[in-house]
């Protein structure tokens, strides 16, 4: 009896046709599960602990109060957000280190504080640099002023 030798060898190729399918599935998975995270914001440096913190007198600083309605009251005068820098300009020309205090009311929204803080920080781009901005907390206000 003649036995036929099989001459056909097994193909020496690695099947890679499905590799792309698997890889694209993984890509879709990553795209679906990854969310667009906001990773940027306004920096706000807190003062270093000092033994003798410089005392800021209420009278020599500019006080920006924020009412619950979002109305800004600068040194007792109601003011629009866009007018605050212009109001500060002559004061800062006389004293570039003039302290500007932002004092949001407890019932006002956080967004209004961020708006005015951002506006003051953007002043540097318009040549009105506010160097000394402070946002005292209620505890500090009670401890130092009231």
């Amino acid at each position, binding site marked *: 009896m003649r036995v036929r030798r099989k001459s056909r060898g097994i193909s020496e190729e690695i099947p*890679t*046709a499905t*590799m*792309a399918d698997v*890889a*694209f599935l*993984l*890509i879709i998975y*990553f*795209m679906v599960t*990854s*969310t667009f*995270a*906001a*990773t*940027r*914001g*306004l*920096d*706000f*440096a*807190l*003062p*270093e*602990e000092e033994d003798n913190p410089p005392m800021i007198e209420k009278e020599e600083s500019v006080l920006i109060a*924020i009412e619950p309605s979002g109305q800004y009251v600068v040194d007792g005068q109601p003011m629009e957000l866009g007018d605050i820098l212009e109001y500060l300009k002559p004061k800062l020309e006389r004293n570039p280190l003039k302290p500007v205090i932002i004092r*949001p*009311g*407890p*019932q*006002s*929204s*956080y*967004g*209004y*504080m*961020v*708006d005015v*803080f*951002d506006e003051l*920080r*953007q002043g540097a781009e*318009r040549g009105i640099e506010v160097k000394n901005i402070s*946002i005292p*907390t*209620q*505890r*500090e206000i009670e401890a130092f002023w009231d």
Partner: protein
Amino acid sequence: MKLHASKRQDAVIPTASMADIALLLIIFFLVTFQIEVDKTQVTLPATGIRLEVPEKSAYISITEDGMVRVSTGEEISQIVPMADVATFASSTVARDPERAFVLKADKETPYRLVDQVVDALKLSQAKTIYLLSEQEVVVGGAADGGV
């Protein structure tokens, strides 16, 4: 005259390099992928100045209704009562005095709540806070200075 029958070419789309491209894309996604430690849904305030938050910053998020979540930046954030924010802040600063804190608060949050968090951070001697924000859209930027 002999006519050769033309050989038919198989219609094949070369897909061998497809996997390479796809794997390259996967590597790109893996490298740029950052684990979001805080998934609280808030409407962030919009600002013109936006600086990149350092990696591994501690997160404190406050929702409009006053729910506070904290994360040291290494694990997923968890809900804590407002009274525990000070403990969280001081233990985080004790471990790493240079660690930045990210405040992710809804723009409609009453300032009273933000004030309590900022006060806790000041008391624990944190150095920098980042107020997380979205990009401010300037409408008619050119006209802004003119009027």
